[in-house]
């Protein structure tokens, strides 16, 4: 059989590699800035786009979808071609994929800075971007599947399975979590409300970790670690078992993000059980990767690439041990809402994703530029700075988490809370300073790598189309018997499963969405009423400023939380919350029962300068809320959208909404005037105060009546 000549497309790989480094730097600098702002709140600059609440989503989205995202595509485009012995299916699709993804990132970052957000963690981008992501993801899928179908190697190497799994799962997760009803070009409301929205969001959120940060990187690991070590993977059979077990278990673990919340108990337990099971396949993969280096440990001493891989795999092992532990309810009771979560994800992100990406870049760039790395010494220096960075990042945060959680839960002998919330924050600020130092070290390492790679690129000569040759795949499907229409599809397994997935998916969506939309909005607590028009506007401000990045709205049923915040939260309280705002981290106190706790004037002063009300507070100030007006031209549309989503505003209420809004705003403005605070009633701060004063109050109405 004659060999076919073809070439590998290195140009797309190169572009994705550059994008990985560029967005990595941007995303990590945003993170560093946010970390410093927790120590020195003046870093918020009193300027809306760079306050913590907006910078943090920019950081998380940039690091996950821009840095790791481009890293995935870089690695997939490089390895898939070589594993399939085929050029990528279509150069045009590669180009659309690359530029489309970069456009989404740039536009996404810009809109996040401007405050356009859905308010759902890791899915903050607004609806036009959600559609664009879906389209580009389809382009990526078509390009990948096309390459797989025209492959010249019959066997699909395990890495390819990881890529396929990633693609299918992310498509499904993204689409289902992104159901939202547009209000305007850059504003929408989640179709789901309250506890249901929370469940969908964390089903998505956890699987974003599983299928965006983990499975594609395991695929890359199974290609690049053996290549860099020049040794076959320790056990190929193990890798196959690892893949299939991981893929079947991961998708059910999401509810562990909602332990002790208003989510039904059985769903919480389901999440915990699957999370604990996950340790087996996760550690299987980790050990398989590490054992691949058997007999090559002497090279690990000198080779920075292998060092990066060893630490990446070790961090993966630590994070996937910690994950199941954090899913135990008794551990979660301590860890949740603290910096433990932040430390946990950063061991994964900095260690596993970051270090694996760096190792791949150091290994791959010289190859596609047919040269050697400019400085191996710098790469080693990068390794040590980066490792120190991870240590300085994680350990202070673990310390801070334990300290703060223990302080929250302490009572005096008289049975009152021992510490004010603010005291628990100020006592861990020094730890935040050390964490920022860790971040600084890590970013410095990244910059050193970029310089090293630029110098490598300069002295190399780029091989845009790498020549290769391989024998074509023999078609083994032989025709036998009389052809039945079903034979056609039986011989096309890939098309068949995709077809069935599409059928099942579309059928399921059309059947179920209306059902739960209608039923889910039957109020379970009769005193819980929809938000007033002014409160809706205030809620939009709350979402826009990313208040959920530091404040939860979910009181867990613990003695200390009930003593500190009030009665624990019930599922029925959130049925009009599109989207839910439970949050996942308490850098500030919980706000679920904030309504009526302080006078309007307190909120006014606090939002203008938090330290005036709470000396030592690290919260940013929000001066622009006192200058901007709410857009009450939108009010009727907001009421209509909410009604479509099932919030029971009476028919025709949108016509009356504006008048109600003005009444309530005037009332608050008058309240403020009594305290000598003069503000026009149409300012955003008035709406925000209205929303904050409503929080958690409905349920108190019944309690008072009884």
């Amino acid at each position: 059989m004659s060999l076919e000549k073809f070439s590998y497309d290195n140009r797309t790989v190169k572009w994705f590699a550059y994008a990985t480094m560029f967005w990595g730097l941007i995303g990590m600098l945003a993170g560093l800035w946010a970390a410093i702002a927790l120590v020195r709140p003046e870093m918020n600059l009193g300027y809306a786009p760079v306050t913590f609440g907006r910078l943090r989503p920019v950081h998380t989205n940039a690091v996950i979808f821009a840095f790791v995202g481009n890293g995935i595509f870089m690695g997939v485009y490089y390895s898939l071609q070589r594993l399939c012995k085929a050029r990528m299916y279509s150069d045009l699709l590669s180009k659309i994929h690359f530029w489309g993804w970069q456009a989404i990132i740039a536009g996404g970052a810009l809109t996040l800075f401007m405050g356009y957000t859905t308010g759902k963690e890791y899915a903050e981008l607004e609806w036009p971007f959600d559609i664009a992501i879906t389209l580009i993801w389809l382009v990526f899928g078509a390009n990948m599947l096309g390459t797989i179908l025209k492959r010249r190697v019959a066997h699909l190497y395990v890495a390819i399975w990881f890529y396929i799994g990633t693609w299918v799962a992310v498509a499904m997760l993204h689409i289902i979590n992104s159901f939202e009803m547009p209000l305007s070009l850059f504003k929408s409301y989640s179709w789901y409300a309250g506890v249901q929205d929370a469940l969908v969001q964390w089903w998505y959120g956890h699987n974003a970790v599983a299928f965006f940060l983990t499975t594609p990187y395991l695929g890359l690991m199974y290609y690049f670690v053996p290549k860099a070590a020049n040794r076959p993977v320790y056990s190929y059979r193990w890798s196959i078992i690892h893949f299939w077990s991981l893929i079947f278990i991961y998708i059910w673990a999401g509810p562990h993000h909602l332990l002790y919340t208003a989510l039904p108990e059985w769903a919480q337990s389901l999440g915990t059980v699957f999370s604990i099971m996950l340790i087996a396949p996760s550690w299987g993969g980790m050990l398989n990767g590490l054992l691949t280096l058997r007999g090559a440990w002497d090279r690990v001493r000198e080779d920075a690439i292998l060092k990066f891989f060893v630490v990446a795999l070790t961090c993966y092992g630590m994070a996937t041990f910690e994950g199941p532990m954090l899913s135990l309810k008794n551990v979660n009771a301590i860890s949740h809402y603290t910096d433990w979560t932040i430390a946990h994800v950063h061991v994964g992100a900095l260690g596993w994703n970051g270090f694996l990406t760096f190792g791949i870049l150091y290994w791959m760039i010289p190859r596609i530029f047919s040269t050697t790395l400019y400085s191996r010494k710098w790469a080693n220096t990068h390794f040590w700075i980066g490792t120190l960075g991870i240590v300085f990042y994680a350990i202070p945060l673990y310390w801070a988490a334990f300290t703060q959680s223990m302080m929250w839960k302490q009572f005096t002998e008289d049975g009152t809370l021992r510490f004010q919330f603010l005291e628990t924050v100020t006592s861990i600020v020094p730890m935040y300073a050390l964490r920022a130092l860790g971040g600084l070290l890590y970013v410095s390492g990244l910059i050193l790598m970029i310089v090293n790679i630029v110098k490598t690129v300069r002295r190399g000569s780029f091989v845009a189309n790498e020549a290769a040759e391989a024998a074509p795949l023999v078609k083994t499907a032989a025709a036998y018997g009389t052809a039945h229409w079903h034979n056609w599809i039986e011989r096309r397994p890939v098309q068949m499963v995709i077809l069935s997935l599409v059928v099942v998916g579309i059928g399921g969506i059309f059947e179920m969405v209306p059902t739960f939309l209608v039923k889910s909005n039957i109020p379970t607590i009769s005193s819980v009423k929809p938000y007033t028009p002014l409160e809706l506007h205030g809620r939009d401000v709350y979402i826009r400023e990313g208040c959920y990045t530091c404040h939860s709205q979910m009181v867990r049923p613990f003695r200390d939380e009930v003593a500190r915040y009030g009665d624990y939260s019930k599922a029925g309280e959130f049925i009009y919350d599109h989207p839910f705002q439970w949050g996942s981290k308490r850098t500030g106190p919980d706000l679920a029962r904030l309504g009526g706790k302080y006078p309007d004037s307190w909120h006014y002063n606090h939002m203008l300068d938090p330290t005036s009300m709470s000396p030592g507070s690290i919260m940013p100030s929000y001066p622009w809320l006192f200058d901007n007006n709410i857009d009450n031209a939108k009010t009727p549309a907001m009421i209509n959208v909410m009604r479509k989503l099932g919030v029971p505003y009476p028919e025709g209420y949108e016509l009356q909404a504006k008048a109600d809004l003005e009444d309530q705003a005037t009332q608050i403005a008058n309240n403020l005037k009594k305290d000598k605070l003069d503000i026009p009633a149409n300012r955003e701060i008035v709406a925000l105060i209205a929303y904050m004063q409503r929080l958690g109050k409905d349920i108190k109405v019944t309690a008072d009546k009884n």
Partner: protein
Amino acid sequence: MNVIILLLGASLAVALFFLASFIWSVKDGQYEDDFSPAHRILFEEETDKE
């Protein structure tokens, strides 16, 4: 909590997809040889440069 039905449906659809893929991969003989694939990926550069 009707949304659980949607999530279960979606998760099961994905699971079924993977189950079908798994059955296909076994029937296709993908796993009959679990030795050479691990080694084959290491050798391609040499053939490329011929």
